[in-house]
């Protein structure tokens, strides 16, 4: 069998056996005000609960029941996991295509109904391009935490994870984190408490370094809170975020607003904007305004489109804007395609087109 044929077979097998899951705050359009309905982690993203997997299965062209649909409704799933493989092609304007292949493994092990251990790691391949330049492969543990849920609506999480945010979209925050929160870890060691009910959702947390900072002087310690309120018929949540942190290299204060609104089951907006003040150990003081605004249109559950606009403005400094239209086609519960472009407007404008194929096994 030739090498190309082998790759084609591998892709086909993975496509039939795998599926992907991300955070989808646009589920507000269907009345899902809280991430905790579908995700093990109350802040969203990561492994899905049994119910979340059922809803995920139902939102594809070939929708159907998940494999464990016949189990009793109160059955405890002791071992939830997924393996995601993503093959991407990025084409930067004026540059060569780059090919990448990433694998992520995520699991949530339930000791009992109240206690879970959540673990995730990823393997990132070198980026391959036609001129054969290559980067470095990397293997990294991104999340490891213990979650204790004494009752519905309350959870305590200790370990390494993303910090809570209003929208819970990692791609949105990564756009401006390199400027308004550089050199620190995106998944610091933390302890956080979640409390939520039909109307309110609150997270408070404290965190410290996890060793992934670029230098010891960026090892930050801090605390923050996120609070949201369901203000309109389970179709609109608005809230506030705040965070303070301190490292040898800087003091940082941050406050923001967010909104998740579903006007109907097809259309809505997501928005999160914040202001950050950083005082460097050199005495320099920087103020950044950053934000993500997104209009989503979901004509069918299997066809999800969005247009996101992001900005990062440094007061008395540079401004950067990014426009990102995207389309996701959910072909089967295991297989989805994503098309997107990212146009960045700064001193030098750039545009990147991406096509990615995501497959998942669970």
């Amino acid at each position: 069998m030739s090498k190309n044929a082998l790759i084609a077979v591998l892709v086909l097998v993975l496509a039939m056996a795998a599926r992907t899951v991300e955070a989808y705050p646009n589920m507000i359009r269907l009345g899902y005000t809280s991430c905790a309905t579908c995700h093990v982690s109350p802040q969203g993203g990561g492994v899905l609960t049994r119910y979340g997997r059922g809803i995920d299965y139902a939102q594809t062209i070939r929708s159907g029941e998940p494999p464990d649909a016949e189990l009793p409704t109160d059955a405890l799933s002791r071992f939830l996991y997924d393996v995601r493989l993503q093959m991407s092609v990025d084409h930067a304007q004026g540059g060569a295509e780059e090919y990448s292949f990433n694998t992520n493994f995520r699991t949530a092990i339930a000791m009992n109904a109240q206690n879970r251990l959540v673990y995730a790691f990823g393997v990132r391949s070198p980026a391959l391009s036609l001129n054969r330049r290559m980067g470095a492969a990397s293997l990294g543990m991104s999340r490891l935490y213990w979650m204790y849920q004494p009752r519905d609506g309350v959870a305590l999480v200790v370990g390494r994870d993303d910090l809570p945010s209003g929208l819970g979209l990692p791609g949105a925050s990564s756009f401006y984190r390199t400027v308004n929160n550089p050199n620190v870890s995106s998944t610091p060691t933390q302890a956080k408490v979640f409390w939520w009910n039909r109307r309110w959702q609150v997270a408070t947390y404290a965190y410290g370094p996890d060793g992934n900072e670029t230098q010891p002087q960026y090892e930050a310690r801090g605390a923050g809170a996120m609070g949201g309120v369901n203000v309109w018929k389970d179709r609109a949540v608005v809230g506030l975020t705040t965070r303070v942190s301190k490292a040898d290299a800087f003091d940082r204060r941050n406050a923001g607003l967010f909104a998740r609104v579903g006007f109907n089951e097809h259309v809505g907006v997501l928005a999160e904007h914040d202001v950050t003040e950083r005082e460097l150990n050199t005495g320099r003081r920087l103020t950044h305004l950053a934000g993500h605004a997104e209009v989503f249109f979901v004509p069918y559950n299997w066809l999800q489109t969005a247009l996101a606009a992001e900005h990062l403005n440094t007061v008395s400094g540079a401004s950067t804007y990014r426009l990102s239209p995207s389309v996701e086609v959910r072909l089967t519960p295991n297989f989805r395609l994503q098309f997107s472009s990212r146009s960045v407007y700064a001193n030098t404008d750039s545009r990147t087109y991406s096509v990615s194929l995501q497959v998942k096994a669970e």
Partner: protein
Amino acid sequence: MASKKITSTCTTIFVGLCLLPLPARAQDAADGQTKLRVRNAQVSVLCPLTIGGSFEAKTKALSGQVGMAPDASQPLDGDLLVDLQTLETGIGLRDDHLRRKYLEVERGPTFAQARLRNIRVEKLAGKTPFRATLLLHGQTRDVTGTADIKPEGDGYRLNASFPVRVSEFGIPEPTYLGVGVKDEVVVRVNLNAEPAAVATSGRSK
């Protein structure tokens, strides 16, 4: 003094003009000659989930006609029918579960339709309590709620809502993979009603 009298007279005329359309409509109905037929309706059932959030099951398949009662002590003459097979929740698989597993629409007409009859309102305009008999899932129960009735053109615009306890109608407890719908759901009805062709007699079946 004269100014006060003029103001009072103007107010009386204004109020009179505002109320004029209502007795005229009521008179038509009281004669038994005019029935109102449903047009441009939407029924939505707000289903709160046990762990927060909610979904709405919606349909526009509301039909029927009602005749106006001569007084508030009499029920409106006629029925309103909702085709439960057209309920949609925004997720196809959930629609299928709702219709077949819980409402059991395939068991026959008394399961495939919800019927609202013996509708009694206290007044024909403005916000008013109402009572009715709901036939759902083969069971008949009285329901009460509130309605807001506004004259519009030749007919009326109505927004009404009333709670329904799922368990009272013998509907199996709706749950899916550990998440359920609370026992009390809220039905909202928005409709326009316009005069139907001249009715002869009797109640619609």
